[in-house]
């Protein structure tokens, strides 16, 4: 019998802000939901994040940012993901992201954007539904 590979998720903190409460809570919730979760720690550059995603062979990247620098950093991360040919990668984001920025971020390929007050259950469901399962 072939065992199904667990979904592998990278939770990453781009930018200089240090609000990691949300990132850690989401990381723990996804882990408790049966996924393999890697957390990058704080202040990762776009290059470091994509490098870790490659090394850890993840299916999903969750970006957490509360500094307001998402409009500069997210496009760079998506650019690097495309350059690496990671076409299956599912990327979602959380933090303080104004509604008016969301459309633009969805356009560059960020599939889910979760603001303050989102339940961990919503995020778990999103990942389960969207991650491209591999065996």
């Amino acid at each position, binding site marked *: 019998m072939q065992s199904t590979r667990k979904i592998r998720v990278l939770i990453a903190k781009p930018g*200089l802000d240090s609000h990691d409460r949300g990132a850690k809570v989401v990381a723990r919730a996804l882990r408790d939901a049966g996924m393999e979760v890697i957390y990058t720690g704080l*202040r990762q550059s776009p290059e470091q994040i994509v490098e870790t995603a490659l090394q850890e062979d993840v299916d999903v990247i969750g970006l957490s940012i509360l500094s*307001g620098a998402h409009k500069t950093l997210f496009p760079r991360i998506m650019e690097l993901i495309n350059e690496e040919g990671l076409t299956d990668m599912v990327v979602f984001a959380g933090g303080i992201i104004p509604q008016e920025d969301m459309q633009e971020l969805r356009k560059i390929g960020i599939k889910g954007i979760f603001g303050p007050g989102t339940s961990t259950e919503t995020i778990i469901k999103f990942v389960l539904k969207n991650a491209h399962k591999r065996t």
Partner: protein
Amino acid sequence: MLDERKIKEIKRERERWESTTLPNWIRHYPERKSEFRNHSDVLIKGIYTPEDTENLDYMSDLGFPGEYPFTRGLHATMYRGRLWTMRMFSGFGTAAQTNQRFKYLLKEGETGLSTAFDYPTIMGYDSDHPMARGEVGVCGVAISSLEDMETLFDGIPLDKVTTSMTINGPAPMLLAMYVAVGDKQGVPRQRLGGTTQNDNLKEFFAQKLCIFPPKPSVKLTTDVIEYCARHLPKWNPVSISGYHIREAGATALQELAFTLYDGIAYVESTLERGLSLEDFAPRLSFFFASHNDFFEEIAKFRAARRLWAKIMKERFHAKKPRSMWMRMHVQTSGCTLTAQQPLNNIVRSTMQALAAVLGGTQSLHTNSFDEALCLPTEESVRVALRTQQIIAYESGVTSTVDPLAGSYYLEALTDEMEEKAVEYIQKIDDMGGAIAAIEKGFFQKEIADSAYRYQREIDDRKRTIVGCNEYTIEEECPIKLLRVDPRAEKEQVSRVQRLRRERDNRKVKEVLEKLHYAAERDENLMPTIIDAVKAYVTLGEITEVLRKVYGEYKELIAI
């Protein structure tokens, strides 16, 4: 507080009530929950009676305001004499933009300044550093050099206001810049009043904006404490902060215990410099959060004041009452604000601010209703300031000192807070102190566990957040958000680059070498850093030298 006979009678009557009136009522009208707990997981009883304060000794546990153990307040008349300082944390964009916001707030009646710096400044990077891209002026004001600091306080006489600066790793640099601005304005250094947060310990497990490893970080904190004790008598060199501990997810009890422990660590590190306790202890200040559970918060503030007084007296043998004072600033809790139905946040901030006032704070920041979405607009910050003014001038709670003293519930909670904080302090002592506890990941794990439990309670709807997990509505973002103009970054980057071209770079090189030498010899760095900023050496350049000497902190990653 009552005699034994009376207590016995009350006990008898309570037992009777518990076997008759109470069950009769509950049979028809059951309670909403099987048990009630506060955020610190303390079981809350249905009623509190004189039995719960049976062991309370008025003189030794409460006393009179302005006297040991200061449970009822630091000053004899509290707000009948002078209201708390209304100090709104603010900063965004360039120094010129924040200078305008400062002047606006002063015009609207705030009584002290409080500066929010942007992330590059907080991390010791100049605005043109690659790590600063997209972050300049976004979450606070960008300050790379004395030139920016001069703009920030342009037209604000530093002998007429006090200024708080939320800065930790680079606290020596920002304080040096403030001193330099004061010198330029001709204000005697003895008259410079304000606060540098400068609490590096909590950075390692709460706010996590660490630059250097723990030991050199504590060394820099202590440099500032020592320098201020000798040269800036009206400056609070450190604001020992529970706020960030709480916002990272700690309970009220953990916030209280960990903060006081950090205080103990700074007292010890400063005593090691050979300063006498009475020379620096009166200037240690504290900073707490005010969260949602009204009575729990009031109990926390009162317990904090009493326990600190006892620690200073019993552990450190302080003699002067001022050395036992815990002066505190309080901020309403940012993490309780909801992005959904944001106007509801005005009510939350009001309750939290009221708790801080009933807890006897010296200074207060009230969050604005839009802060789960963006930095506050002029309108939202005005409402936040008005909230304080309404409490101060309309509510009547300022007419008497410590109006809730003697409440069976509040006094029982205050006692319990103190007792449990003492247990934590004992535990950290046994671990070998604050740095050892950080290195073991003790604080980090305690806080992460509490944060996760809190979120689970919300997700499982065991904890109601109005407008968020109950009473929700479909809404488009109903308010106008403040957006920082992206031109601010460009402007600021060219400003710092122009400065580097135009200043006396020979002098810069010389003073940086001096700094490197002083850092290696473990001298107090404040005098050298003041010389450096006056020569327009940038924040990034100074930090870079210290990074070379001290190394950089590597985060302990745990989820």
